[in-house]
């Protein structure tokens, strides 16, 4: 039997004034997958309304894909999630939330 990685993602668009909700997705897989791979699969295959940062610098330095997994801020490109387990995914910096898992960074001056 194939195993699944189950993720519950905090969803919110602050421009609507609506309260956040958690939506659960199950990815069938036999191998460990990075958070970024999982989010890409959800966006491309299952739910095109999900917003996440898709950029990957390839060297784990840019922090673009940072998210909170089980309360811990991690880099999505370098964090592996295991089949058979459930995870809670939330935005890395809720104070600068743009939508879902997308947060603003401190810009030079905005």
């Amino acid at each position, binding site marked *: 039997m194939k195993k699944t990685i189950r993720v519950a993602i905090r969803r919110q668009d602050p421009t609507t004034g609506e309260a956040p909700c958690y939506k659960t997705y199950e990815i069938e897989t036999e191998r460990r997958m990075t958070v970024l791979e999982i989010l890409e699969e959800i966006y491309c295959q299952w739910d095109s309304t999900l917003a996440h940062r898709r950029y990957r610098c*390839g060297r784990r330095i840019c922090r673009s894909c940072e998210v909170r997994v089980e309360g811990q801020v991690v880099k999505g490109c370098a964090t592996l999630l295991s089949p058979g387990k459930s995870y809670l995914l939330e935005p890395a910096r809720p104070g600068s939330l*743009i939508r879902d898992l997308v947060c603003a960074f401190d810009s*030079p001056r905005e």
Partner: protein
Amino acid sequence: MRAAIEAAREGCRVVVMNKGPIGRSGTTPMAMESFQSVCIPGDSEDLHFQDTVEGGRYLGDENLIAVLVREAGQRAKDLESYGVHFKRKEDGTFDPMHHPGQTLPRTLFIQGGGFGMMAGLIREVRKHPAIHPLSDVFTISLIQDREGVPCGATFLDLKDGRLKTIQSQAVILATGGYEELWSFNDASVTACGDGIFLAWEAGAELIDLEMLQFYPTIVIHPPAIRGTLFQYELIVDPEVLGGRLLNGKGDPFLEGIPLRDAVTKAIWKEIQAGRGTEHGGVFIDLTHSSKTRPDLTEALEKWQPNQFHYLKDMGFDLRDVRIEVAPHGHFTMGGIAVDEWSRTTVPGFFAAGEVAGNLHGANRISGNALAETQVFGAKAGSSAAAFAKGRGIPGTKELLLEMKRAETLLDRLGRRPGRLFRPSQVRKRMQEIMWRRCGVEREAEGLRRGMAEMAIIEKEDLPAMSAAGSGAYPQELLDALEVRMMVPLCRLVLQSALFREESRGHHMRADYPLSHSTAKHVVLARGKEPWAREVKRVGRGR
């Protein structure tokens, strides 16, 4: 960013528009550590010039190369003054690497790579109150007045999902390349050629679009680390890592440290001959390095610390395991035609960096990309400032008209019931066609088929494509806006690749394996058939 600094210095107000977070998206933060500039006794600008001309297989415009080699040193000093660190020896002199294609060691090693360089540029930008950076904004169209001169742009502000407009007297395009047109690339997902499409729409000439540089050694398996670049130049250099490239049978097949186009061809030959690995690549192998384990570890820590630790933490210690790699699209050498002042062929529009098209020719040598961004960024900033100063505030009539057009476009792309195609599906189909028909090896029949297939996507898929697109950060709408630009750009690339009936550098034609005796550009402009243009020569060199 370098262009913004220069224009601000000359008294202009500058708005920097970036479709992701500035410094954490786009092309530059992904760049390796290399910045090519003459720095040791015995080396010279003439040698740098000659290496770039020869490395580019004589297709780079020499007036541009002359500017690059003349000003790279000063631009490196600028970067140091912005707080960017280059690797130096204990005596304080530069500690350059010797990369393929360089007569003498000339690659300055930037601490932190392109990301580190961007950090310095951002620090400098903070000192200029006249520069207004805007993160997470997507430029939809450039606006021109009746004479074709720029008067602004429309853009989607991803932070609140609203359509906005901006007035400007000059426009600098610095949006990077278009590697994302192909399935297999190691570039940023943002490298969709936005700036090239916008320049095309504005009437600018595009040049040598078929010239996609492949990087030979990008990880293809396992999937979690797919797309990671590890520099073959360091792997196979006995002085650095002392490793090897092996085919699927475990046999070495590469001699010396050739340039990227030659290594790509050698790997491609192994794969095509059935000597590839299980997943269709070759191995990078440091498990039999000529170095002792402590020396190898020290070298990895010195030259590729980020990749080494990243792969190690993901479960792949390069000292113990071989990793499967294959050529991927890495850098687009074609783009917008520019002159030595970074001017495009349309007054008021300037272009700098990978978005420009006639500097590197048919093969870019290592270290010239970041040098290009700084040399021609400064040129573009200064040229745009001079242009803008001579103009009044543009009228608003064209802005309002263009705003209406952009509104219609967004409405059309927005979610409709019964939509047929999602942008991610169209993008995937488009990328597969490009890889199959216009990948490492090309031929006329395949390119013609690719053009016919792309025409179907343009006529049937694009009008039937729609996106979930309301509220803040409408990711699928952004995806749709990108695909809308990428598909016509694919057609132009295929057209250029068909027109160039020779093999040169990274453009490998199975039906035309030889190079013409004289290199010529392939030029495209709206409403015209492609044509060939002489490469500019300046008669400089050793």
